[in-house]
C-alpha cells in the first residue's frame, strides 16, 4: 500500500480549540521546538489518514493573514509564502462554532489565497447549548470547501476529519466572492460577504439572559473582589514554587547524592571519575532540580490560560504595568521570579508581544529570587544589629523586607528604562479577546507541561552542565606545584599523633580552594573589588556564585573550614571574628555587609538564568547584555553604598 506524504497545517483564532484538535489528531506523536530563527512555539506531529502519512504543524493562533505580531506573522507567512518551510499542501481552518463571524474572516482570507482547505467547525457542544443552528452543507457550498463539525475536547468528529484529510483532492478552491474584495476596503467587504453567508446558513438568536461567564466576570473583575482574588492567586503561585516544590526537589537532591555515592563505589578513583561524578553528574543534578518548580509554575499558568482567566489578568493589571513599558501578561512571570527566575523566564512564552516578552525576560532576574535568601540571611545576621525600631519592628526583618522591595523596584525601573530602547513589534494596539470561561483540559495541560520541561532540559540544560563543569574544574584544580605542596604538608600534619583528621581535612579543602585557578583569580581581582569593601576571599565566593547565588554560603563555609555548609551560625561567627589588619575592628562590618547585599541584589549570578535567556531569546546577545549590565550596575551600586555607609558609620 503506497503511502503518500502530506503536509497539513492547522490555522485558526486563539481560543478556537486548535491545540485540542492537534492533540486529538496526533496523540503523543508530537515534537517540540522553535520556528527557525525565532522563539515561537513550533508544534509538529504525525498521524495517518487513510493512505496518507500526515505531517501536521500547529500554526500560532491568529485573527487575520495581516499579521500584527511575531506569532501572527509566522502563521500568515506559512500560508501565503509557497517557499516557506512550513507551507502546507492542505490547511485545516479551525473555527469556534460559537464565534463564526470572527473565524470566517480568516477562513475567507485563506480560501482567497487558493490554499486547499477544510473548514473545521469546532466546539459544537457549546453551539448546541445556545439556540443557534448552522446548516453545514450550505456553508460548504458557500465557501467552496468541505466543512466538518468537531468537538475536539471529547473528542468527536475526529474520525470523519481524518477521512476527509485522507480523501481530499487537494484542488485549489475558488473564492466565489473574490471579485467583491478590493485592496482598499477588503476588510469591510469581507464582512459583507460573511453577513451574507451567515444569513443563508444560520438560524436562531443569542439567548439574552446573563451567562455564566458574565456572572463570573462580575466577581473576578470586580473593583475590590477581583483584585483580592487575583492577589490571592499570585500568593498561591508563589507558595507552590517556593515551598510545595521543595519536597520533590529534596527527593531529587537525595536521588542524585545516592547516585553519586553509587558511582564512587563502582568507579575507580581518577580524574575522569571525578569529572563524571563531581562535574557532570552534579551539573545534571543542578538541571533536574528545576523541574518541580517549572512544572508547578506551568501548571498554574496553563490552568489560567485554558480556563480563560489569563485574559482577565491582563485586563486587571494592564493599567498599572503599562507605566513601566510592560503589559498585563507580565505579572505572572514577575511573580514567579520571586521564587525562581528560571521557570519564570520560560513562562514568558505566553506573552505574544515580542517587545513585552523580551522586556519581561530582561528585567525579571532583578526580582528577589529564593537563591538570594541564604546570602541575605547570612549577611543580615552578620552586620545588621538585632534591635527593634521603636521597639516594634526588628531591624533585621526590615532589612529583609527592604531587599525584597529593592528587587521589585529595580525590576520595574529597569523595565521603564529599557523599554525606551527596544523598538515596537508593530502598532501598539491593545485589542484582546476575552474568551468564554471553560473547564480546563487536563490532558492538554499535562502534554504542555511535559513539553516545556523537555525543552528546558534539552536546551538550557546543556549550557548549564557545561558551565558547571568548567567552574568545578576551576575550583578543584590549580598549579600542580602548589597542590603537591599542600598534599605533602597535610600528610605530615595528619601523621602526627592526636591529629584531628576531620578538622585537618577541612583546612586542607580551604587551602586547596585558595590555591585553585579560581582561588588565584580571586586574589587577582582583589584590587578591583577592594573599593567595594571586599577581600580576595569574597572574590573567590563571587566567582563561584556565578554558578548560582546560594553557592556563596557553601564557598564561605569551605574558606573558613566550616564542615557543614548549612551551619550558617558557625560561618557567621568565624566571619565576625575576622579583624582588619592591625586593628580590632571587624573586617566584615556594616558598610561591607550593605555593599555585598546590594551587589547580590543586582548582579547576574546564575548560570541557569543565562542559559534559559539564551534558549528563549534564541541568541547570546541578550544574556550577555544582562550579564554585563546587571553586574555593572551591581558593581557601581555596591561601591556607592560602601562609600556612603563608610561616611556615615566610619
Amino acid at each position, binding site marked *: 500500500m503506497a503511502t503518500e506524504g502530506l503536509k497539513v497545517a492547522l490555522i485558526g483564532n486563539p481560543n478556537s480549540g486548535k491545540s485540542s484538535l492537534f492533540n486529538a489528531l496526533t496523540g503523543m506523536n508530537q515534537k517540540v521546538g522553535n520556528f527557525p530563527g525565532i522563539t515561537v512555539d513550533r508544534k509538529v506531529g504525525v498521524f495517518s489518514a487513510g493512505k496518507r502519512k500526515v505531517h501536521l504543524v500547529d500554526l500560532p493562533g491568529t485573527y487575520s493573514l495581516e499579521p500584527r505580531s511575531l506569532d501572527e506573522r509566522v502563521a500568515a507567512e506559512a500560508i501565503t509564502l509557497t517557499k516557506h518551510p512550513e507551507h502546507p499542501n492542505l490547511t485545516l481552518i479551525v473555527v469556534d462554532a*460559537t464565534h463564526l463571524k470572527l473565524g470566517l474572516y480568516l477562513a475567507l482570507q485563506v480560501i482567497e489565497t487558493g490554499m486547499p482547505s477544510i473548514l473545521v467547525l469546532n466546539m459544537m457542544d457549546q453551539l448546541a447549548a445556545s439556540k443557534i443552528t448552522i446548516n453545514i452543507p450550505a456553508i460548504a457550498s458557500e465557501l467552496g470547501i468541505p466543512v466538518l463539525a468537531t468537538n475536539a475536547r471529547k473528542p468527536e468528529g475526529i474520525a470523519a476529519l481524518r477521512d476527509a484529510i485522507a480523501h481530499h483532492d487537494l484542488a485549489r478552491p475558488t473564492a466565489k466572492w473574490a471579485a467583491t474584495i478590493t485592496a482598499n476596503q477588503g476588510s469591510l467587504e469581507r*464582512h459583507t460577504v460573511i453577513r451574507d453567508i451567515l444569513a443563508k446558513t444560520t438560524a436562531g438568536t443569542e439567548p439574552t439572559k446573563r451567562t455564566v461567564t458574565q456572572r463570573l466576570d462580575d466577581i473576578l473583575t470586580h473593583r*475590590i473582589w477581583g483584585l483580592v482574588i487575583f492577589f490571592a492567586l499570585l500568593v498561591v503561585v508563589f507558595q507552590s514554587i517556593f515551598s510545595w516544590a521543595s519536597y520533590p526537589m529534596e527527593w531529587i537532591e537525595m536521588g542524585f547524592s545516592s547516585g553519586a555515592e553509587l558511582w564512587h563505589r563502582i568507579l575507580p578513583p581518577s580524574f575522569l571519575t571525578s569529572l563524571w561524578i563531581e562535574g557532570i553528574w552534579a551539573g545534571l543534578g543542578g538541571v533536574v532540580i528545576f523541574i518541580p518548580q517549572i512544572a508547578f509554575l506551568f501548571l498554574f499558568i496553563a490552568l489560567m490560560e485554558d480556563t480563560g482567566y489569563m485574559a482577565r489578568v491582563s485586563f486587571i493589571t494592564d493599567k498599572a504595568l503599562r507605566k513601566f513599558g510592560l503589559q498585563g501578561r507580565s505579572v505572572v512571570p514577575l511573580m514567579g521570579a520571586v521564587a525562581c527566575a528560571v521557570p519564570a523566564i520560560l513562562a514568558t512564552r505566553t506573552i505574544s508581544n515580542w517587545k513585552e516578552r523580551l522586556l519581561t525576560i530582561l528585567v525579571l532576574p532583578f526580582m528577589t529570587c529564593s537563591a538570594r535568601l541564604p546570602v541575605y540571611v547570612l549577611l543580615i545576621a552578620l552586620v545588621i544589629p538585632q534591635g527593634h525600631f521603636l521597639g516594634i519592628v526588628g531591624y533585621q526583618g526590615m532589612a529583609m523586607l527592604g531587599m525584597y522591595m529593592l528587587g521589585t523596584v529595580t525590576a520595574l525601573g529597569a523595565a521603564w528604562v529599557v523599554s525606551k530602547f527596544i523598538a515596537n513589534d508593530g502598532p501598539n494596539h491593545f485589542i484582546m*479577546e*476575552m474568551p468564554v470561561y471553560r473547564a480546563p483540559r487536563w490532558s492538554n495541560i499535562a502534554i504542555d507541561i511535559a513539553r516545556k520541561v523537555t525543552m528546558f532540559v534539552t536546551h538550557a540544560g546543556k549550557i548549564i552542565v557545561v558551565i558547571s563543569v568548567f567552574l568545578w574544574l576551576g575550583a578543584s584544580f590549580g598549579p600542580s606545584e602548589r597542590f603537591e605542596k599542600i598534599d605533602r604538608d597535610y600528610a605530615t600534619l595528619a601523621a602526627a599523633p592526636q591529629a584531628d583528621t576531620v578538622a585537618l581535612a577541612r583546612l586542607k579543602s580551604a587551602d586547596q580552594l585558595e590555591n585553585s585557578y579560581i582561588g588565584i583569580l580571586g586574589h587577582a581581582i582583589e584590587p578591583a573589588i577592594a573599593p567595594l569593601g571586599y577581600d580576595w576571599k569574597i572574590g573567590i565566593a563571587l566567582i563561584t556564585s556565578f554558578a548560582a547565588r546560594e553557592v556563596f554560603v557553601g564557598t564561605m563555609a569551605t574558606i573558613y573550614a566550616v564542615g557543614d555548609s548549612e551551619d550558617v551560625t558557625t560561618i557567621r561567627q568565624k566571619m565576625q571574628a575576622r579583624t582588619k589588619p592591625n586593628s580590632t575592628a571587624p573586617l566584615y562590618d556594616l558598610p561591607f555587609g550593605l555593599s555585598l547585599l546590594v551587589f547580590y541584589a543586582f548582579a547576574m549570578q546564575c548560570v541557569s538564568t543565562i542559559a534559559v535567556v539564551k534558549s528563549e531569546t534564541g541568541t547570546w546577545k541578550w544574556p550577555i547584555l544582562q550579564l554585563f549590565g546587571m553586574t555593572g550596575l551591581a558593581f557601581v551600586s555596591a561601591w556607592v553604598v560602601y562609600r556612603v555607609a563608610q561616611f556615615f558609620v566610619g
Partner: protein
Amino acid sequence: MTVKDLKIGQEAQIFAFSDKALGHHLVEMGVVPGETITIERIAPMGDPIAIRVSNLLLCIRKQEASAILVQLPSPAH
C-alpha cells in the same frame, strides 16, 4: 460621540473610526460599522474596558475606544 463616552450597558451603533490603522484592526476582529456596541465592564483601575459586539467580548484601552465613533439609537416610534 465615541465609545469612551458611553455608559456601561448603553447600546450604540458604530459608524466610523477616527484612526485608520486601528479601525482596520478592529474591523478584522468583527467591530464593523453598522454593528451594535456596548461597554460591558470597566477594569478595577478604570482602564481598559471590555466592549461587546455581537457575542464577542473584546478588551481595549480607553484611548482606543475614543477612536470608535458611534451614534445612539434613535428613540423608538
